[in-house]
């Protein structure tokens, strides 16, 4: 249908059907999703990957963890076998005795990649065995702390009232006890070893995560969705597991990442002053201790473990900083 409006001062416009379309709300257009829908974790992952510093930290950590698992298998030497004929070798060397023995038997001789220590133990094997111990202790301590912290802090924050008051008074009192002093004391009494180390560090360490969880739970308790869930008849258990835990998990993970370097440092410190891990078992702290004793003659024995301790703590700190930004819901959608 085409008609022409002809009138005074009106330009000659041809009105077509196309021009006479209804302009208004179009449900199809409105329902179109412009941005791909992302869950909280996908969003955080994207943000983390866009942060080069945090990504670098993550990559280094993954490499160290893989090496801690597989590297000891890459060398024929054991971390605990003494060899009096291959003591204090520089990296990538073999002693004359070893070369002679290998030439005699016709076997291929594996190099000591990081050299050997004063007992002739292969430092490559010891370094990665130490990585296992140090990383395991760091992870174990922080995980146990977080679980205890969640239980205690959760109960205090969620149920409030007298339970909260009693728990908080206890925490106030315990919080003042210097952690490292108590850890030294416990280590002296329990003797050295991985289990004692973990117990000593958990003894006071759980308190800060309990405080963190309590604060978060207190805040969430008065949120609308918790009220809605309760109104709909959800049990306490369901509210805690379905609504509260996912909402504090971001902060918890950030906190754990930042706490692991502390645990690794404390382990190294206790081993360094001689009450953490005892030889022939090893950890990075113990390696640094034995290395420091010989650093005037064989500096590499100190520098190798020092390098790994520092880069691990650095990576965890960088990753933690990135995670804090990535997991902060207030920063959502900001790339």
């Amino acid at each position, binding site marked *: 249908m085409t008609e022409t409006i002809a009138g005074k001062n009106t330009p000659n416009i041809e009105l077509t059907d196309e021009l006479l379309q209804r302009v208004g709300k179009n449900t199809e257009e409105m329902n179109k999703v412009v941005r791909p829908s992302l869950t909280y974790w996908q969003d955080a992952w994207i943000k983390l990957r866009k942060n080069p510093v945090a990504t670098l930290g993550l990559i280094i950590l993954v490499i160290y963890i893989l090496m801690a698992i597989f590297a000891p298998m890459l060398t024929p030497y054991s971390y605990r076998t003494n060899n009096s004929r291959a003591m204090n070798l520089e990296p990538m060397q073999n002693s004359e005795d070893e070369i002679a023995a290998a030439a005699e038997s016709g076997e291929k001789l594996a190099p000591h990649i990081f050299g050997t220590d004063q007992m002739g133990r292969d430092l490559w094997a010891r370094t990665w065995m130490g990585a296992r111990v140090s990383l395991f202790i760091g992870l174990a301590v922080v995980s146990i702390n977080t679980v205890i912290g969640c239980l205690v802090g959760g109960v205090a924050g969620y149920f409030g009232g007298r339970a909260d008051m009693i728990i908080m008074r206890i925490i106030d009192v315990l*919080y*003042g006890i210097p952690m490292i002093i108590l850890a030294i004391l416990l280590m002296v009494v329990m003797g050295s070893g991985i289990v004692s180390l973990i117990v000593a560090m958990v003894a006071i360490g759980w308190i800060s995560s309990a405080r963190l969880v309590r604060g978060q739970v207190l805040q969430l308790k008065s949120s609308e969705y918790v009220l809605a869930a309760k109104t709909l008849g959800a049990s306490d258990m369901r509210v805690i597991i379905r609504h509260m835990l996912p909402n504090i998990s971001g902060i918890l993970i950030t906190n754990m990442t930042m706490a692991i370097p502390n645990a690794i440092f404390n382990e190294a410190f206790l081993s360094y002053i001689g009450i953490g891990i005892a030889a022939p078992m090893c950890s990075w702290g113990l390696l640094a201790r034995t290395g420091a004793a010989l650093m005037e003659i064989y500096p590499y024995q100190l520098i190798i473990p020092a390098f790994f301790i520092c880069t691990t703590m650095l990576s965890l*700190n960088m990753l933690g900083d990135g995670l804090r930004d990535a997991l902060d819901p207030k920063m959502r959608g900001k790339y």
Partner: protein
Amino acid sequence: MPKYILKRCIIAVFTLLVLITIIFFLVRLLPGDPFNDPKVTDEVRARLEAYYGMDKPLIQQYFAYLGNLLKGDFGVSLIYTGRSVNSTIAQTFPYSADLGLRALGLALVVGLILGTLAAQKAGRVIDYVCVLVAIIGVSMPDFIIGALLKLIFAIKLRVLPAGLWNGFSYTILPVVALSFYTLALITRLMRSSMLEVIHQDYILTAKAKGLSNFQVIWRHQIRNSILPIVTVMGPLVAAVLTGTFVIESMYAIPGMGKFYVESVHDLDYTMVLGMTAFYGIFLVSANLVVDILYGIVDPRIKLAESKQKADDGEEG
């Protein structure tokens, strides 16, 4: 304010009581009886019996021990005849205090300067250098810094002494090693807290009314951003004190930390317990002082608390 101080004091007293109770009962948990060890000489045994009242029931021993601590008597050595915890502390503590105060002072001065500089020049090269120093410092345990400094400056370059405590040149390496972590932490904190202050309206006002750059930084920015540093002074003192264990052993400084580590190695239980009690009392008191100082320094404590509550309410 008095209520706040009173509350802090009561908590500190209970903390000490718990710590001392743990210390007392831990030694009873030791496998075997360290006091009956053949190594322990008769004379030492007699002194231990007098100190703990070992013929009396446990609970009386506990109160005797508490009473001794109240009198300022920390006990005697299990292994060395005639050596008491008190005399050891009196001999060694001055060195540790000297070292610790120097390290803390250096960390505060340099940390504040670096943090301020980084915040002023945010995003420029100086900022990146300061942030780098901070992140390396936080990631490097003091025993590694100490060992590396010793290796480079004392052993390879031979410009500074590798140990002992005989004058200013002897103090440089240990003080720098001990202060590094603290310095890094202060730099980091100062930078972030000052970055928040820098964009406040009152800074703009100060600049608008014609104050010089220096005056704006000194009178307005530093004073307003220094509070977070006060809050971490307690843990920082603890970190420096723990650091003295390692640094004093490494640099052969005759301080309390070195002696503590040696006692731990010798399994001189009563010595370790006595010195631990002393360290505990020292740190708890330091924390208490910091808490009270914080309450006095920050007039906004009350305001901040009520604001926090309002914020929580809004979000909830």
